[in-house]
């Protein structure tokens, strides 16, 4: 599941940043999710690493009917902002940019680095997570905003 997905990304030296509900949880929102959402660097070499990381685990697009499901292929990454995969080790959503924030380099500049499952991973900053939720604008995203903003206020108070 999430642990196996992160380990596989790390083992293949994929440049990625954790976003979405796992990031929510890291900052204190009590939620349970079974999928990992990541922002990836769109460099060709990194895309090859992503393919290497998941090819052994039968990755298939979740948002296609079974008859139209494709395997993980670098052509899929062309002009796609999001790719939703199901693999033998769990579900992973791959994003090339974060709506309301920007591309990998922009998000990386503010990200935090944490030690989890014995690997170092980057997580989107709380400020950028809030911007992303606001930009997404769906009810589900907007509902979590007050809690994230309260957490930001509390955490910034602590640092004063």
């Amino acid at each position: 599941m999430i642990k196996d997905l992160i380990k596989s990304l790390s083992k293949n030296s994929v440049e990625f940043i954790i976003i979405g509900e796992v990031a929510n949880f890291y900052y204190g929102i009590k939620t349970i999710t079974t999928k990992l959402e990541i922002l990836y660097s769109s460099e060709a070499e990194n895309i090859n690493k992503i393919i290497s990381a998941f090819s052994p685990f039968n990755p298939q697009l979740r948002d296609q009917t079974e008859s139209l499901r494709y395997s993980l292929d670098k052509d899929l990454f062309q002009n796609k902002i999001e790719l939703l995969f199901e693999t033998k080790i769990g579900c992973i959503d791959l994003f090339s940019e974060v709506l309301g924030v920007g591309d990998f380099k922009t998000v990386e500049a503010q990200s935090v680095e944490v030690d989890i499952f014995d690997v170092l991973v980057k997580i989107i900053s709380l400020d950028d997570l809030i911007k992303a939720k606001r930009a997404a604008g769906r009810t589900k995203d907007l509902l979590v905003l007050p809690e994230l903003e309260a957490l930001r206020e509390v955490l910034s108070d602590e640092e004063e």
Partner: protein
Amino acid sequence: MKRSIEEKLLNPKPGSKVAAAKEFGIDLTLLLRQLRLTPQQRLDELQLAMIEMEEFSKAKRISGK
């Protein structure tokens, strides 16, 4: 022709409850996957997810604000 559960979830009809759920922000692809699992498999995944998420609570911050 009657549409399958897969078709209903992946291509919801405008104005349907499924379309409303998608607009709300529900990941219908994940819901479809859940439906393919047995109740036992769903419980096993949930239990594992809870353990893994708990690990994030203990993750040590190395750098960043």
